């Protein structure tokens, strides 16, 4: 169920996964970008952890506003701004109702408002949108998430740094898609999502 408690677990698990996979995410970013995606995300993640420890947010919107600004202010890379923007828009949606799908739709809007990425442009959007589809069709699972992440191998980058070398990069997983996979794995594991 989507509550402020399960969502705190969600974000905490996300932070842990980012920390555990910092090097892996950097490695994914190296050939197609500048090799810093893991380091960037961990910067934002640690900021979020310390903010949450300082003062626990009262409700869902507050939690996601805190998450949003942590990533915007500390990540220093494209993806951090996109995640930050996503979280701020999720907070806005949660102000209306504690509805997971509406929240994620708001988040997508935030990502696209700033990044203008569509499906199959080799970005985190290629995980975010199919995951929303899976929730709608009640068939989200760790396997599905993983498939979405891996699907980015076949896409040609159209946005961000990777676009500069797009044709050379078929066969590489997009680093932002990979971190987005962790975000949704964490969501499943935290029990936020219930069919």
């Amino acid at each position, binding site marked *: 169920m989507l509550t402020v408690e399960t969502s705190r677990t969600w974000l905490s698990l996300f932070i842990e996964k980012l920390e555990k996979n910092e090097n892996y995410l950097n490695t994914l970013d190296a050939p197609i970008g500048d090799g810093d995606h893991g380091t960037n995300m961990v910067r934002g993640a640690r900021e979020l952890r310390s903010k949450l420890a300082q003062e626990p947010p009262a409700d869902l919107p507050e939690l996601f506003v805190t998450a949003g600004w942590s990533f915007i202010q500390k990540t220093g890379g494209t993806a951090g701004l996109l995640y930050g923007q996503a979280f701020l828009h999720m907070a806005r949606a949660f102000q209306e109702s504690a509805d997971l799908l509406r929240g994620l739709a708001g988040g997508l809007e935030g990502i696209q408002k700033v990044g203008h990425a569509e499906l199959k442009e080799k970005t985190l959007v290629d995980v975010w949108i199919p995951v929303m589809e899976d929730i709608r069709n009640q068939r989200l699972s760790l396997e599905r998430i993983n498939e979405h992440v891996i699907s980015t191998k076949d896409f040609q980058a159209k946005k961000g*740094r990777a676009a500069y070398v797009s044709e050379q990069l078929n066969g590489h997983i997009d680093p932002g898609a990979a971190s987005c996979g962790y975000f949704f794995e964490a969501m499943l594991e935290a029990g936020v999502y219930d069919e």
Partner: protein
Amino acid sequence: MSEQYGILLVSHVAELADGLARLLKQAAKDVNVKAVGGTEDGGIGTDFDKIMGALGKMKEPEILAFYDLGSAKMNLELVRDLTDKKLIICDVAFVEGAYTAAALVQADTPFDDLCEQLQGLKVK
């Protein structure tokens, strides 16, 4: 000093932004040029707080902003949503565009003419 227009340079690297500001100031002594670059810890990236801070220190009501790579633009867009100033994000060649704009502001060029000249430097 142009009282109306200031110039904000945002790069992923501090030296790049500072060096460009130096180039601009030589041709545009009376234009306020602020440079922001790098992450908080001196790394490569752009920092929302730094940009917001630099903008806050600028007195001019309208700011022409130039950037190196796309993520700097995203940061600028976030800042634009939050500032009282008119932040004009220019999708032109970073060095050439900022240089042209500085020279034109220095020469008190009307804003429309300035935009027209910048059009030719659009690469983003």
